């Protein structure tokens, strides 16, 4: 079997461990600078909140060349009294190895699922390796609802700057909520808790040679859990601060990865989401508090400029996706003055639904289709930034709520045109 859980050296370690209660996975790739802090936070969290549970930390690495695996192996908390913790009563294990399969976060997670299944774990969590704001409490918040409240899947709730996470806020959250009827605020948060049963269920799905293995794992885990009726909750983790992103990362590539994964799942779960009307909140854990956030610099003029370039150059592509009526409305926006630029939420909702339908009908290659959404997305983002410029965080959140309600009330448009 082509799986890290069944490689000889890993197999020997698993046999030595036998069985555990908790598995914590950290997927990584060249994260030597940051992963040490994450490992310490995980170890402290497991010691502080789960001293009576056997636990294993798994670093599923994508072949780092900067010594990430060595950092994981060598990092430990020598003096627990310094952080006011008791020593564990149950053993804590650590495994670090390169995963097999297609390079990507999904393959790294698959290794975690397989080890969780092999060790018959009760609860699991996965956290990013570049987190700077992770604390031991994150472990408690992601794992306790599974061990003690019988939940199967825990998504994170973060405090983020009102201008951050715009792909989540304007596409993934409203769409996932309208489709599957659960108000999961961070469906692609990246840090999740899940039960051992759900890990085994994930392994039954034949997706490990697809884009799920590369980049679509976050939305796939969330959607699979919701659409298959697993018990879902979310935990407030505070601020999410992580290492500076790769400056070469292209927005349209990011958009393609996230949106194509979301649209792809719509095909597979069409029967389920067509039955869903409206949405309901999911239970939340954790104590919500305000977090001081770094100011975010934005350049709305550049965004609106790209939106206008889209109008001038992508007319034929947009016409085939949006139809003449909505395209006329989009073109009308292009003529507005920068300060008066506003993208109506009803139009944005139809744009996303039209793109989902075009993706479903394979109107053009998926990458071209979704990358042609970039200027429209930047127009919507610029509009939101201009609108929310002087708003408090809760007021900006209220605007996102309005957008979600629009997605829900217009869902019949999607269903009617989905053939």
């Amino acid at each position, binding site marked *: 079997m082509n799986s890290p859980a069944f490689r000889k050296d890993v197999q020997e370690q698993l046999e030595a461990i036998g069985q555990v209660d908790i598995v914590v996975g950290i997927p990584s790739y060249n994260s030597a600078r940051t992963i040490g802090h994450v490992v310490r936070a995980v170890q402290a969290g497991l010691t502080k909140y789960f001293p009576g549970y056997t636990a294993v930390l798994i670093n599923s690495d994508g072949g780092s060349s900067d010594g990430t695996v060595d950092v994981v192996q060598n990092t430990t908390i020598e003096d627990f009294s310094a952080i006011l913790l008791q020593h564990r009563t149950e053993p804590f294990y650590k495994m670090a190895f390169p995963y097999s399969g297609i390079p990507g976060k999904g393959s790294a997670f698959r290794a975690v699922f397989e080890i969780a299944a092999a060790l018959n774990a009760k609860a699991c969590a996965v956290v990013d390796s570049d987190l700077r704001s992770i604390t031991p409490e994150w472990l408690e918040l992601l794992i306790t609802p599974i061990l003690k409240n019988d939940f199967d899947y825990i998504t994170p709730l973060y405090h983020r700057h009102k201008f951050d996470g715009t792909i989540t806020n304007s596409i993934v959250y409203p769409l996932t909520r309208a489709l599957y009827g659960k108000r999961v605020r961070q469906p692609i948060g990246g840090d999740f808790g899940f039960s051992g049963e759900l890990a085994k269920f994930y392994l039954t799905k034949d997706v490990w040679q697809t884009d799920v293995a590369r980049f679509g794992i976050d939305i796939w885990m969330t959607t699979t859990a919701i659409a298959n009726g697993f018990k879902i909750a979310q935990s407030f983790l505070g601020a999410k601060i992580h290492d500076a992103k790769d400056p070469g990362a292209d927005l349209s590539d990011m*958009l393609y990865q996230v949106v194509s994964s979301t649209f792809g799942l719509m095909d597979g779960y069409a029967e389920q989401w067509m039955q869903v009307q409206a949405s309901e909140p999911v239970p939340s854990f954790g104590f919500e508090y305000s977090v001081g956030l770094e100011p975010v610099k934005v350049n709305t003029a550049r965004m609106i400029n790209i939106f206008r370039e889209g109008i001038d150059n992508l007319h034929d592509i947009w016409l085939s996706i949006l139809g003449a009526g909505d395209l006329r409305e989009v073109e009308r926006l292009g003529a507005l003055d920068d300060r008066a630029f506003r993208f109506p939420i009803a139009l944005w909702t139809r744009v996303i639904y039209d793109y989902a339908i075009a993706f479903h009908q394979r109107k053009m290659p998926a990458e071209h289709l979704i990358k042609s959404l970039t*200027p429209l997305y930047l127009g919507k983002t610029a509009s939101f930034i201009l609108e929310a410029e002087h708003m408090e965080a809760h007021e900006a959140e209220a605007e996102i709520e309005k957008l979600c309600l629009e997605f829900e009330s217009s869902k019949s448009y999607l269903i009617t045109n989905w053939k």
Partner: protein
Amino acid sequence: MSDFLNLILEPLQDVFHKFKDFAPNFLAMLVILLIGALFAWLLQVLVLKLLDTLQFDSWSDRKGFTRLMRKGDMWGKPTLLVSAVVFWCTLIVVLMTALSALKINAIDQLVTQFFVYLPRAFSSVLILAVGYVFSGFISRAVLIAAVNSGYHYAKLLAEAIRILLTTLILAMVMEQLQIAPGIVLAAFSIICGGIVLALSISFGVGGIDAARRMIERQTAAEEKEKTGEDIEHI
């Protein structure tokens, strides 16, 4: 007198003998043509039914094949076009086979040449079809990428790339069909060389100031972009 009569009759006998030899071949040609035409028609009907069952028209609409036809001023249904192509291709092959039944040297040579040329014609059509799709794909990818980078002349750039690729594909097709390959190669080299030279001159000599301004603007925009925005989209 009898010699004179023989002189007249011999050519007539020759013609009669030749006709006697030729008549069965001619009959065979007619039979092959008739059966072949019937077979081509049957094949057309079968292909039409099969494509209808497979909903080829809707597939063509989705994949852009119908749009391609409309661009070529063809307004019928895609299923009808494909079945008509199948019919005529079969009929041409049947015609060539029928002609070879006449067993006339000149026609035999023509038929042989036709069948030797057939793979070239087929591969040319294939190059043309794949090339058309490929150039459209690349040109659209360039257009979208250029727009997303905020490049003002995106459409112009995409169109230039499409024309360049189409020229390359047409040169490949003509080379494949062996239509004046030397001239095609020379013309293609001259055109490509000319384009590169024209660009070099316009940017290097004629437009030093414009090129400098463009590069400065681009660099300034990149710098501004690097420092002017730190929004996290995910």
